[in-house]
């Protein structure tokens, strides 16, 4: 009898213990919401920009998790090095979608990688954002899940032609690297020239990527008859700096003014001036930020976070990456869903105060138009480098 009582007491104690444990145990951690980042993190891809992009994503996750995450769940990053190989980037995408179950993706940087990955989202669906991958096809192909909060060749080239018209240039030598960026800029300039400024004559000079000596190619500028009154450079770093130097060496500049389709030279002004010296004086550069540009409240908040961490003002395209993450989080919070189709439908009609202006997407269903899942709220500014070592260039267009 006594033995039975002991057994009963033990059983009751064990049951009670187990019951107390289950009642008082801490709740299991919420499953994280995963965001993919496929960006260049090693050469020969532009890993300098890639590291800044990753830093932005890390800062955002830290910022959002400090606010309690999203729908009570923490954010978590899944990172892949895109290299310059679309196959590698797509394998990252496949892994992130099928194994990591990411909800959103910061897509690759270079268009030559971003475009195949955008295509691959039809097979591995996920909401993908790009900002500074300029190839028109990224939005012109009307992918369901791909959104661009940034620039496209066709939009930038329109700005270039508007500037050339405003400045009165009549004959341009357009040096274009053989890449989606260089060729895309050329195609865009030809289109807008015909529509906006048919009097303008443009001569294309293609330059292979990866060379060191471009004198054979640049000689074509020198032999143009009549000579061009402007040289338009659609080349990325480091080639744009090398060409500036060689144009000067060949005596083509400073006689003929030059304009670059983006302010690549000023990614690092110190090394730019050290490398090109006098050859950079007079260079006109296009950019999407200006000393006269004002941040929104959201922009101020991000700029402060970035300055605290990195020690300088964020480049404008980094602000756009911050915006893409804010869009994704707002979509998840407002729809209370992580379903790709629900999020995609919501983002199509997003209305949000971005860091540099209001964000609303164009969604023209006409086949082939780039105005699909495309933000067009940025401004193109033109600056002129007036002297060696200049860091704050003079804005010449639009007139400040």
């Amino acid at each position, binding site marked *: 009898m006594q033995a039975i009582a002991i057994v009963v007491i033990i059983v009751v104690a064990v049951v009670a213990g187990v019951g107390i444990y289950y009642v008082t145990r801490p709740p299991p951690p919420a499953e994280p919401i995963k965001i993919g980042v496929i960006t260049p993190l090693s050469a020969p891809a532009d*890993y300098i920009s890639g590291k800044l992009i990753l830093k932005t994503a890390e800062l955002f996750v830290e910022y959002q998790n400090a606010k309690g995450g999203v729908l009570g769940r923490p954010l978590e990053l899944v990172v892949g090095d895109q290299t310059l190989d679309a196959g590698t980037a797509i394998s990252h995408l496949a892994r992130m979608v099928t194994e990591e179950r990411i909800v959103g993706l910061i897509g690759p940087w270079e268009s030559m990688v971003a475009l195949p990955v955008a295509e691959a989202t039809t097979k591995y669906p996920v909401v993908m954002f790009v900002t500074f991958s300029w190839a028109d096809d990224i939005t012109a192909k009307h992918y369901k899940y791909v959104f661009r909060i940034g620039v496209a060749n066709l939009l930038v080239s329109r700005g270039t032609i508007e500037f050339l018209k405003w400045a009165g240039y009549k004959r341009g030598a357009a040096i274009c690297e053989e890449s989606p960026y260089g060729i895309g800029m050329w195609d865009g300039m030809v289109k807008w020239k015909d529509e906006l400024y048919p009097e303008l004559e443009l001569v294309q000079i*293609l330059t*292979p990527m990866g060379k*060191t*000596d471009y004198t*054979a190619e640049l000689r*074509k500028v020198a032999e143009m008859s009549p000579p061009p009154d402007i040289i338009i450079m659609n080349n990325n770093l480091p080639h744009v700096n090398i060409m500036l*130097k060689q144009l000067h*060496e060949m005596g083509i500049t400073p006689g003929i003014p030059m304009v670059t389709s983006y302010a690549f030279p000023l990614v690092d002004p110190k090394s730019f001036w050290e*490398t090109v010296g006098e050859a950079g004086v007079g260079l006109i550069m296009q950019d999407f930020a200006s000393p006269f540009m004002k941040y929104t409240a959201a922009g101020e908040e991000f700029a402060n976070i970035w300055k605290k961490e990195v020690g300088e003002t964020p480049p404008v395209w980094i602000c756009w990456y911050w915006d893409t993450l804010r869009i994704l989080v707002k979509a998840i919070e407002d729809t209370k869903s992580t379903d790709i189709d629900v999020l995609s439908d919501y983002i199509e009609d997003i209305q949000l105060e971005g860091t540099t202006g209001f964000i609303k997407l164009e969604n023209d269903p006409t086949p082939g138009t780039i105005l699909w899942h495309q933000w067009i709220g940025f401004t193109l500014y033109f600056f002129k480098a007036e002297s060696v070592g200049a860091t704050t260039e003079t804005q010449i267009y639009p007139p400040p």
Partner: protein
Amino acid sequence: MISLPVIVELVTMGLVLAAIYALMAIGITLIYGIMKVSNFAHGEYYMIGAYAAYYTVKFLNVPTALSIPPAIAAGFALGYIVERLIIRDTYAKKIERPGEYAMLATLALSILLQNIAREVFGPFMRSTPPLMPGRVMLYLITLSLDRIIALVISIVTLVALYYFIRRTKTGRAWRAVAQNKVGALVTGINPEKACSLSYGIGGALAALAGGLLAPVYAIYPNMGFWPLIISFVAMTLGGLGSIEGSLIAAVIIGLTHVFAATFIGSSYADVAMYVVLIITVVIRPTGLLGRRD
């Protein structure tokens, strides 16, 4: 109808390019000629030379001309060390496929050195001040004095190297090692010493090119890629290991680039270079002046 002045202009430009290409290719040709080793890290010796010149100018505040000897020394030291640590196994040990080993080892070294350069020197572009500021009009084309200096030094170096290999005791020892290491050993030549020295000098020549061309082009971690491509094409076209052949090949490449860019299109300049290489190798598998082993 193409006018004579245009032809003369193009030929002049092509020859100037050729001299620079030859300068890039000398070191790799020398190494292959003596050791029969494909050096895929050649571009990085070029890069190290450029950075050595840059930091000499920056920290010692000396004229660019005085930065060339440290550049050469850096290239030599790196070449010498790499030969001792990595390449020596190709002939000192019984490796089954020494050629493949050397190729992969130098390729890995190339990637390693590029990444180290990126971390140590930073990713951004640098440049040394001109060796001699100014430009000259050479017939119809304008050239910087730095390019002229590179051209002259390229020719002097080629002639000196040719003389060194043909006429000096060390040069003859190198040729003996290139032909038969065991035979050379029997005659009292130390093949290991000859190999270390020739590899070091190959590195020094690449670094000389890097230092000289730093003011003409620019300095960045993967700046050696294009010189590597040009060097391999020049070496293969000229005949593996033939210094005279690589000089002739550099002239052909320079002229091909300029004429193809002008008359076919810039996009086809490199294609034309490879077409010339393929046709040459099909007709003459050993290259222009190469010999069968």
